[in-house]
């Protein structure tokens, strides 16, 4: 059986950059657009990198800023100053 991790964001301007960054760093991830939300799922692991986000935004970005736009997640969380990782072991 496949083990999918997922993350869902409000469909807003901030999320656009998050989705771009995630798509770039997780080429195998599937992006699903639903009313008012964007859900991204991937097999076993999904990462958000601060560096990629800062490139997309053109400014400093704190990983915890994602807390404002996230709706839900599935998977074990590992967060530090440089990345946010969701994974199943």
């Amino acid at each position, binding site marked *: 059986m496949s083990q999918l991790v997922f993350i869902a964001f409000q469909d807003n301007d901030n999320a656009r950059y998050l989705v771009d960054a995630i798509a770039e760093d997780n080429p195998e991830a599937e992006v699903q657009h639903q*009313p008012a939300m964007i859900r991204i799922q991937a097999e076993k692991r999904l990462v958000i990198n601060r560096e990629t986000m800062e490139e997309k935004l053109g400014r400093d970005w704190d990983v915890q800023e994602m807390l*404002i736009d996230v*709706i839900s997640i599935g998977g074990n*969380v590992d967060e530090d100053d440089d990345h946010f990782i969701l994974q199943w072991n």
Partner: protein
Amino acid sequence: MPVKNKKLNLKDKYQYLTRDMAWEPSYQKKEDIFPNESFEGIKITDWSQWEDPFRLTMDAYWKYQAEKEKKLYAIFDAFAQNNGHQNISDARYVNALKLFLTGVSPLEHAAFQGYARVGRDFSGAGARVACQMQAIDELRHSQTQQHAMSHYNKHFNGLHDAAHMHDRVWFLSVPKSFFDDARTAGPFEFLTAISFSFEYVLTNLLFVPFMSGAAYNGDMATVTFGFSAQSDEARHMTLGLEVIKFILEQHEDNVPIVQRWIDKWFWRGFRLLSLVGMMMDYMLPNRVMSWAEAWEVYYEQNGGALFKDLERYGIRPPKYQDVANDAKNHVSHQAWATFYQYGHATNFHTWMPEKDELDWLSQKYPETFDKYYRPRFEYWAKEHAEGRRFYNNTLPQLCQVCQIPTIFTEKDDPTVLSHRQIVHEGERYHFCSDGCCDIFKDEPEKYVQAWLPVHQIYQGNCEGGDVETVVSKYYHINIGEDNFEYIGSPDHKRWLSIKGKQSDDKESGSSQDAA
């Protein structure tokens, strides 16, 4: 010499907050300070292993929460100033909000009380900090939901006395008793029940597809509070998973205790969510996905991945998961049929779906809807059209544990009602399922005390013996305004006049409601 202030990294900040600001007691015994930590049999050998993966500290917490609130209230203001209620898909939708405000928002408040209490019960500082933040979050959810819906209260019926109704109304004893059960358990069971089983495994089903549905029905205020609350839930869910892993890693003796709690709270949560299934399939005029589809994504798929991850601790998927998975094709229809029959005793309106809505249900539930439910619904619609709107005047038998009327059917035969009974100390008790019966057998001394609304009415504890008196005097439901069929209701007339289709305002003074 001024030294440049080096910024602490996340891990260090979290470490300072949850370890270095705590202390070991010197003149009182630890077990006297935290007397509830051991009676459930959970063994904690090292609290320092507790880790919040978000590593949220108070400064960051206030900063991000303040930002969320500013965004949220800007939208509430815009919604109210622009008469947002006029732009929803259909006024039938508002009935889902009535159920939400009376059934769900008070649970947020109960969760606030629960976390405030259990936060005091743990000797580990990391757990105390996590519970404190979650308590504040839950209070925020309760308040923002009431603020969001106060606008609807100005324009629609049934939203005027939610807290009072939550404590008394027959179907609201289902959510109320769920949280009362959790709050009267020990601190570790509370966390397993609410943080893990409810938040992690099941709340996605409430807050994600339903709120997406609210957006699809033009309800800007609700989708915004829903997703704003859910942004906190993402933290709560993470915490729920960490809590379970933490408890399981502490001692092998914890495994069977946690498994029993997972079994219990999965089943209780699944039963509670019957209400949400009905809201999604019947109360959203524009539908996003069916309850069965939501169950497949958010329980079967996500829950499957989760329980596979927990296998290495010796945890298996919840008992009776197979029954719950099978029920995804039935529960929403069975619940709606029940509320339709008892629409004289609810603070919201009920109706039979229109033809295109029935077709949608047939398409989404090809195995069950046409065979078991559609003929009954078409019969009721026909009866209504001929002036005989059906109301059931017999009070239903309730399950002693989940408190839902025993309306659900057997897994292997949807034509047979599922009913279990046992005799305990000379009294006979009734249940909707093996799941609920097992919960009773584990702790009969707790569930014999259940406050069952139907029993209370028959015992004369609800200000009257007839439904009308109970509904108006005891529940504070305004008869002829809040209850009965949607078609022809004051809400329906108001909606038609908003949409300029037909202004019946002058006629609405005379009571035309079915009784």
